[in-house]
Every structure is written in C-alpha cells, then in structure tokens.
C-alpha cells in the first residue's frame, strides 16, 4: 500500500516501520502539536496510505486535498491502484457492476458459488470450490441472510444466530477550531496530520469503557466554507456572510475521534421485509442507536478535543458531537471465535457452518477497537488466505453443482 509514517510511536508495538517517510504535518499539524505538547498529551505524526514520494508507479502527493473522494493524481493508495492491476495480470477476472443475489449450496451444505445479476440484467452463476466473501459489515450479513436455504434456514453460516448482529460503526465526533493565523489547512493531504492515543485506553473513572483515537485533519477545500445545508438559512453561508466564511479557509482544522462503540445485539443488520435493490434483491435494513456508553464517550472526547484546540491557540470552536454522515467503518456482524455457538467464523475467517466459505472483511471483528480498521482488516484477510493456502490439502470442496 505504501504507507508514509514515522516509526517510534510509543503507543504502538515496539517493532514497526513504514516504507515511506512521513508526509508533512504542515502548519496546522505543528500548531496542534504545540497544543498537545503544552498539555503533555500523547501525539504523533499520523501514518497515511499516501505516497510521500514516488512509490511503485504512484506519484508523490501534490496536496490537492481531495483524498476523501478520489485522488486526482493516484498518490493515495487504493486497491484499484495497488492490487487489482497485478491480480488481473495474474489471471483474476473482475466483473464490475455485478450484484450477488445469493450464495448457492449443495446437498452437503457446502457453498458451490455465487448467483449474480450482471449490468445487463442477466442472472449468472460463478462456480467455486472455495468462496471468499468480502462485502463489509452490511453487505456480508445481507448476502448470508439472502442465501437461506433448507440446510441453512436462518441464513447461511447462521447457526449461532449472530449473522447481522452487533453492528459497530465507529461514530465520529469532531471539534473544528478556527485560528487567527494562516495554517495552510486548505491544502492536502486530507489524511491525518497527527494522531493521539491519549484517551484510547479504558479509564472507568470517566464513566464509560473503551476509548478512541484522535485524528487531526486539515479541513481542506474552500467549498466546505461555502456549502449551504437545508437546515440553515442560506444567508448564514452565502450572501454577505460568504466573505467571512471564506476567510476561515486555511485557518480551520479538525480534531476528530474514532469512538469505540461496543458490540450490542440491538444494533444489527436484517433484511428489509419489502425493500429491494433495482435488481429485486432484498435490501438490508440497519437498526442502530448510540448507546449510553458511546454518548458519554463522545461528550468526554469533545470536551478534551476542545481543550486541545484552545491550548493550541484556537479563537473559535465548532463542535460536531455526531457527524451524521459518518459510520463508514462497518464491523462486527459475522463475529470471529472458537465456539460455533457464539461466533460465525473461526480464527481464520472460515465459517463454522460452511467449511468452504471464508469471510475476510470487517464483519468478523469481535470488538470495534477505537482506531481506523483497514490495516487490521487487511492483516486478517492476509492471515486467512495464507492459512487457506497452507491448509489446502485438507480443504473440503463440493463435488456437485449448485442446487
């Protein structure tokens, strides 16, 4: 992936290194670091999967700051750039736009492949000896539940009843600070300039369990200071207010926290009883509410992040206790474990009920952690596939076609 970072963070395991040197923390990062230094709180330059110099065909970042939508130069690592080209060159076939309707099984309850609808509306079947599923914490339970059959009446791999249960989404809380000096925060990269684990570990004196990692983001882009939202009078953003709003560009930066929400049965993914997608495939329905623990955690972190901004010299604060558009870390809905009665997959992602089905996405997380999950998901996927290869002589595979 080509992660840029600085080794030595005492909050991380002793042995770690990065293939690329760190990206600049910039003036906004330096300002925030001075605030953390003043408070004596942990901070470190944030690692980012963004090239700080040319790396494996990707150019170095030139700071457009569009990282959260799409990198215009390809400096940000994404699997279309880092993996798919190589996989296709080795013979992988990528079918874009296809939607899997269900996984098919044989009389022994083994997966025989996937039935899908292509973008021409044609229903097709891909036969497979082993099926690897990576559809995220919503898509994976949706597909398993949509694959119910006589051998698996409650959904595929769902003897435990935990498919779709315990959805965790990392509610995101932010505090934006405005400063009276230019921070160049209109520039990218829009990754984390700094991170802090100061309040990551549980301290029950705070009134909640768990914690969260902080990320300092640059709040890049002028348009964010000029975008009207329907819940506000337009004259608050545009009109004569626009000049003042735009003057914040480059002086505005965000501390955000990835809140460790807990695995709770009431937060789940089920099949909607009536809604389907445009191919007629039953749609997922998400039932999720913030727990009291998460609410307390958010309140605590918003107060601490406000203090961090003020220590750094912020002249105004804009707290956003729950970023409504967040919830993009989709975890926990096919949990991992040794006991088939209390988990969906084993330690290598293999479904307890279906030995030729392997799940390698964030749905296998048992807890959400309080950090960005992609590196852990990748590590789990790599471990699962290595085991699959090493154990291939014992792999059970179907002998007949799909029913």
């Amino acid at each position, binding site marked *: 992936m080509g992660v840029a970072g*600085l080794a*030595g963070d*005492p*909050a991380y395991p*002793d042995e770690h290194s990065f293939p690329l*040197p*760190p*990206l*600049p*923390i*910039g003036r906004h*990062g*330096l300002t925030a*670091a*001075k605030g953390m*230094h003043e408070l*004596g709180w*942990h*901070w*470190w*330059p944030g690692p980012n999967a963004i090239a*700080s*110099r040319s790396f494996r065909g990707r150019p*170095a*970042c*030139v*700071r*457009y*700051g569009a990282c959260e939508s799409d990198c215009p130069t390809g400096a940000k690592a994404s699997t279309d750039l880092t993996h798919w080209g190589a996989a296709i060159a080795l013979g992988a076939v990528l079918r874009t736009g296809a939607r899997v309707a269900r996984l098919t099984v044989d009389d022994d309850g083994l997966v025989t492949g996937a039935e899908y609808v292509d973008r021409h509306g044609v229903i097709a079947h891909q036969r497979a000896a082993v099926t690897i599923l990576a559809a995220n914490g919503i898509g994976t339970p949706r597909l398993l539940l949509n694959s119910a059959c006589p051998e698996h009446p409650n959904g595929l791999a769902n003897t435990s009843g935990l498919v779709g249960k315990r959805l965790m989404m990392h509610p995101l809380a932010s505090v934006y600070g405005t400063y009276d000096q*230019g921070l160049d925060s*209109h*520039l*990218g990269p829009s990754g984390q300039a700094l991170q802090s*684990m100061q309040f990551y*570990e549980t301290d029950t004196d705070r009134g909640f369990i768990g914690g969260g990692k902080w990320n300092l983001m640059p709040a890049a882009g*002028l*348009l964010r200071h*000029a*975008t*009207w939202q*329907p819940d506000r*009078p*337009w004259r608050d*953003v*545009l*009109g*004569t207010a*626009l*000049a003042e709003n*735009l*003057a914040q*560009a*480059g002086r505005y930066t965000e501390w955000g926290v990835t809140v460790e929400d807990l695995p709770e049965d009431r937060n789940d993914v089920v099949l909607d009883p009536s809604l389907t997608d445009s191919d007629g495939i039953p749609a997922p329905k998400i039932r999720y509410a913030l727990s009291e623990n998460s609410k307390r955690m958010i309140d605590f972190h918003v107060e601490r992040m406000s203090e961090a901004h003020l220590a750094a010299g912020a002249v105004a604060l804009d707290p956003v206790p729950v970023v409504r558009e967040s919830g993009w870390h989709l975890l926990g809905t096919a949990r991992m474990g040794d006991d088939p009665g209390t988990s969906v997959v084993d330690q290598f992602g293999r479904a307890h009920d279906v030995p030729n089905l392997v799940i390698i996405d964030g749905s296998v997380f048992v807890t959400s952690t309080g950090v960005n999950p992609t590196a852990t998901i990748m590590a789990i996927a790599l471990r699962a596939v290595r085991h699959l290869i090493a154990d291939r002589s014992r792999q059970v595979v179907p002998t007949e076609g799909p029913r």
Partner: protein
Amino acid sequence: MTLDPHQRRVFAQLADILVPGSDTVPSATAAGVGATLIDQVVGYRPDLAGDFHAALAQCAGRVPADVALDDLSATEPEQFAALAVLTAAAYVLSPQVWEALGLQPAPRVVTDDTDDYLDMLAAVVERGFPNPYR
C-alpha cells in the same frame, strides 16, 4: 448542457446575490463565474444540471430576486441546493478568489518538516505510553 443567453442573464443576477463580494473578495460576476466557470462545474456535476436549470426557471422574472431565492430555498430546497453549490463551486475555482484570499492552491510539492517538531516529539517518547497489553 450550457446556458442559453437568457439563462445566463438570470444566473448572473442570482449569482451576484448569492455571492455579492466585499471589500476583500470579488462578486460572482467579477470572479468570472457566469462567463465560463459555471459551465465547467455543471460539467463536473451533470447530476445537478436538472435541478440547476429548474432553479433558474423558477426565479426568472421574479422581482426582487433575493425574495425569489428565499422562496426557492423554502419550497424547492433541492433546486436551491444545486444552484447554491454550483455557484459556490464555480466561485472557488476562480483565480481571482484565491488571490483575494491570499492562498496558494495545489499542486504543491510535499516537503519534509520533521525538523520542525522532533524536539517536541522527544518529550512524547520520554513520557512513553502505558500500554496494558505489553
């Protein structure tokens, strides 16, 4: 889907109400929004073109135009949102706006700034981290 001359006149009037300019920044018209930039951003967001054109049609001939915008934001928020975001996006593409704000846009070469903070970072290392799993 570029604007015809009538639509462009309507748009210019509305854009200068949404972005009137100030002592520090130019108005929408002065920034070149109505000339070519609006066509450029509509090209980036063709999904908003329908609501954008509908907004112009709703406001055409309405006097005063700012009241027409108030009505549009209240009764047709999707149309108003398309008009507002495309106008703002065109505006912040204008080199005159960047110059007025004193900002240097990308592309900018990334530089190594570790020397600026290593002394502070040494204090973080010295404090260590109470890792309960180590």
